[in-house]
């Protein structure tokens, strides 16, 4: 079962961190269709976070069609996310590395870069997405 974690102070809302972790696990094949996600109470208690945060994350996953709640049973993975082919991932990684190099060259530090990436990710709406 997926092990969630939450980092505060990153500027990324905790519920989105949970959503991203599920998406990440789906891309890596660590979660598959039919897998049960931990209950809201399990996550709230283990991570010591607000259960509303977990509920909001699960609602967002349902909205994206990635998970579905079954009354009295829990929340289950509904759809998987196809991972990219390795070569395509490597291409994107190269582009990211060169962007990182220019950010460092411009004088940004790791925290500043992480904050900028987090903000951009949060605000970016790819064409055609809802």
């Amino acid at each position: 079962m997926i092990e969630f974690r939450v980092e505060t102070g990153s500027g990324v809302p905790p519920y989105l961190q949970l959503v991203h972790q599920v998406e990440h696990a789906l891309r890596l094949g660590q979660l598959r269709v039919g897998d049960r996600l931990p209950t809201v109470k399990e996550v709230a208690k283990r991570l010591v976070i607000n259960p509303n945060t977990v509920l909001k994350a699960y609602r967002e996953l349902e909205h994206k069609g990635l998970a579905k709640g079954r009354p009295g049973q829990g929340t289950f993975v509904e759809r998987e996310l196809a991972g990219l082919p390795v070569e395509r991932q490597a291409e994107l990684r190269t582009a990211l590395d060169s962007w990182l190099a220019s950010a460092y060259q411009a004088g940004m530090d790791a925290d500043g870069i992480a904050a900028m990436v987090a903000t951009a990710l949060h605000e970016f709406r790819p064409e055609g997405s809802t």
Partner: protein
Amino acid sequence: MTETAIAATRLGKRYGQKWALRDCTLRVPAGRVVGLVGPNGAGKSTLMNLLVGLDRPTTGELDLLGERVGPNRALDRVAYIDQEHTLYRNFRVHEVLKAGRLLNPRWHEQDAVDRLHELNIPLTSKVGRLSGGQRAQVAVAAALARRPDLLILDEPVASLDPVARRDLMATLMAAKADRDCTIVLSSHVVSELERLCDHLVVLDHGEVRLAGDIDDLLDGHRLLTGPAATADRAPVGTCRVVHQERAGDQVSLLVRGAPPAADPAWHARRVNLEELVMHYLASAADTTGGGKHPAVLG
């Protein structure tokens, strides 16, 4: 359950000549976990005392869970735990529970017994012999046995070590997952509220400086950083500047409103909860202290 847990309208409390709380208007939707923050003397405890009926407002109106606060109304659905987790130290744990049973019309003793069993706290222990963390757990178990719709905790973990803090908050968060209720936590450590709370109330000098759902507040603010020399020409658009802070030849502006358009000389980023609170408190200090950089409020 009613939709609004706390509705305060121009609530004020005066002690002698001093207003401990003034013009406090709040609306907290039911089911939220509310972080009540502010420096010492901001009015947090005064507000909490009004919420739990330990004190009466000088001005204004207060409705809890859809009912006007008064004797035998609303307050039987509200539970309160103070900073010291006050319990009779000579009582054994089962005597604490017996007192709860005799004093409360709503009482579900098995909830408390199960919770304490899970925490390995024997019912025969004397309260005075328990660790601080265990005493806090007994106080929380007794409060939760009333199955409150509104649970109010004044600095619940201030006196506890980190492990006991974590355990107590885990108990609270699990209890909230079991049975939906509204929780209000006061603290002056903002960083520990970020994972616990989804609604924020910032008090300072007896006044509400900021209130709302945390995700909305974080979405609705940006920190603009750029050259101090052109601070008055910062690309704030229609945003309200909450507070500005100068560091060397750079200036940072916390703005509220729609994110301004990109300007190459200026960098806009999201803020975290702690930064947001600090800027609001600093802005309040500027205006009340007659500082050199008056913040634009209102």
